[in-house]
């Protein structure tokens, strides 16, 4: 199908483009930017007047809940949510049931996703069998089956020797490991940031040193093994400083933060709002400011949704018993735009964090609209808005602390490999 996207404001951070330029698509690829290729005759013309045309969004963390948690969400519902949110590629953590520690499971997941002809799914393989932190998985086999990197999701490897060996093994093959820095002993039983709000509300707390101690441990092992490390979901200023120092030292480290930590703090727990129950916990306003600054400066490489659909029954419980996590695929773009507006960041910088920079972290050639690139495109209305409600969310997960909020930006078209996977009226 030949598509001509005309009159749109093309923002392609990887190619430093922010201008009114048309985009021409054929056979699933970008065949022209600016001028039409010779003899191009469009089957479909998308009038993008007043709209932004950018690379399809890349979300570094979205739980699809398959296999095993189909009552929380399914591939169908979550892929629909992804494209409605302008997301064309996503990485999913290995904490499914069973855990993604067998090549067969990975193949099945990729097969299922491919059949839906929807967003590209990049599964993260389990670093240890069952995520139990004891035995290594067959990382080479898993990589061959399609795993893009290896992770422990929210589980921890408490045995430092096992962690050392796992990172060493991954480094052997040049695989990247994505780790959540949290010391499991200091975080045990904790449900909120250990600070003023937790003290007032009588919630068991997780101190910041749970993050910094675990991060120090990981960075030392990076020095020892040379493994490439992606630090996921940094939550504190001190944690971010640790990553910044590691980068300055020249260590192969990247990091991300979630949309929730970009905008919220422990104050948003308010009257024990279970939608504010997250891993890692929401920390202080100062920590939030540091994360926002870090995202602007690029110390935080990418912003992700950390999409985690949770069923209502699991959320309607006292705060400490509620299942942690928030839905987010459809909020990635609006919350990025909200931040850009508040922090007075150029749109190109903001969009880079969810396109080209995210692609760089993933190590894939995506998130750019160069001639010849796969035509994964997002067309959105920067002046539109998205009212967050159970009805407006396509995801099965309606659990978000942003319920009721009116957020900026509205996806109008999402193209995946040159076909229109999603479109909506103004």
């Amino acid at each position: 199908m030949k598509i001509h996207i005309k009159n749109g404001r093309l923002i392609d951070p990887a190619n430093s483009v922010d201008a009114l330029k048309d985009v021409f698509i054929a056979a699933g690829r970008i065949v022209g930017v600016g001028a039409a290729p010779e003899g191009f005759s469009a089957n479909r013309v998308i009038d993008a007047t007043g709209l932004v045309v950018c690379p399809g969004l890349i979300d570094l963390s979205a739980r699809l809940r398959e296999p095993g948690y189909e009552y929380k969400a399914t591939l169908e519902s979550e892929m629909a949510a992804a494209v409605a949110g302008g997301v064309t590629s996503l990485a999913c953590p290995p904490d499914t049931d069973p855990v993604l520690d067998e090549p067969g499971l990975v193949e099945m997941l990729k097969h299922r996703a491919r059949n839906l002809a929807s967003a590209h799914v990049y599964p993260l393989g389990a670093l240890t069998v069952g995520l139990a932190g004891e035995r290594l998985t067959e990382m080479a086999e898993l990589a061959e089956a399609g795993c893009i990197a290896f992770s422990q999701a929210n589980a921890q490897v408490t045995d430092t020797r096992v962690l050392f060996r796992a990172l060493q093994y991954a480094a052997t093959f040049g695989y990247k490991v994505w780790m959540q820095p949290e010391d499991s002993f200091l975080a045990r039983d904790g449900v909120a940031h250990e600070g003023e709000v937790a003290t007032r509300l009588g919630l068991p707390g997780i101190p910041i040193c749970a993050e910094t101690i675990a991060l120090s441990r990981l960075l030392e092992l990076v020095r020892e093994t040379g493994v490439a490390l992606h630090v996921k979901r940094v939550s504190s200023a001190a944690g971010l400083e640790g990553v910044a120092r590691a980068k300055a030292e020249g260590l192969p480290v990247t990091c991300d933060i979630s949309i929730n930590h970009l905008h919220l703090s422990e104050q948003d727990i308010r009257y024990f709002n279970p939608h504010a129950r997250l891993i890692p916990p929401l920390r202080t306003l100062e920590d939030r400011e540091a994360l926002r600054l870090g995202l602007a400066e690029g110390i935080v490489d990418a912003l992700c949704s950390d999409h985690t659909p949770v069923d209502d029954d699991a959320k309607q419980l006292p705060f400490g018993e509620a299942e942690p996590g928030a839905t987010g695929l459809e909020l990635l773009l609006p919350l990025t735009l909200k931040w850009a507006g508040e922090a007075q960041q150029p749109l190109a910088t903001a969009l880079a964090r969810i396109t080209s920079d995210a692609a760089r972290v993933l190590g894939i050639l995506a998130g750019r609209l160069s001639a010849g690139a796969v035509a994964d495109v997002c067309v959105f209305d920067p002046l539109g808005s998205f009212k967050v409600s159970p009805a407006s969310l396509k995801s099965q997960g309606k659990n978000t602390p942003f319920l009721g909020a009116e957020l900026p930006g509205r996806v109008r078209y999402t193209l995946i490999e040159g076909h229109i996977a999603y479109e909506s009226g103004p």
Partner: protein
Amino acid sequence: MINPQLDKNGGLQHLLTIDGLPRDVLTAILDTAAPFTEVAEREVKKLPLLRGKSVFNLFFENSTRTRTTFEIAAKRLSADVINLNIGTSSASKGESLLDTVDNLCAMQADMFVVRHAVSGAPFLIAQHLAACGRDHIHVINAGDGRHAHPTQGLLDMYTIRHYKKDFTRLVVAIVGDVLHSRVARSQIGALITLGVPEVRVIGPKTLIPADVGKLGVRVFHDMRSGLKDVDVVMMLRLQSERMQGALLPSPQEFYKYYGLTADKLDCARPDAIVMHPGPMNRGVEIDSAVADGQHAVILPQVTFGIAVRMAVMSMLAGA
């Protein structure tokens, strides 16, 4: 999220926590409790205020003591009282909390007295009732996790007012395991709201929560200096589980440095009163002789507790 304790007109719909209640509401509760203290002196210890109402004691965490005082208070108001003790172990996971509440509402409950091991549970119930439009049902928090025990805080305030009259001239010290104590959090909130100029917490660092200073208290780790010139000493119960959690080495060492003995009490003012929410661990947080001595007002606290709970139930039911 609106404060679920208050109704549309800003009146008290539930009693969930001292936090967020203005001084005049706390004072009104204390003022209302005063006439209820006399009912206990009469032969017929009953008032008709809650006749025909059903009060459900929903205890997800066991406590015969607290449940009994609420039961006595409700019965003295002529309410029908139903006690439900529901195990909290996740192994015995039957009905969800909100399903249990819905079932009881279907049985014409008018008031829930809730105790739960997890902070915030009564809030969840109150929000759920509001979402279902059940405005005539009231919730009293009888203790949720480490968060709050508002009726205990109130009866402690009543006790202090009874013996000391003027809150604005006092130095009050709370001693012991503040970290795990919902009683302490409610006491701190009430003392500060009622205008006590200096509230102190005394305990080892492992038992004093992070940022407790931000609640408006002074922190002491040395008990003698902490008790200097104090008018009211509020002791907290030390639970034996604290030894397991690597928070304390032994009850003996705790007693030596943080137990209330006569000689430590001498650091306080000569007319200081000694309080304890009960049940006491004699020889752990408090010396037996002090517990039975002339400074202790621990038994009057129990009597006042019934009157305060009667006042709270009446104020909510009449709202």
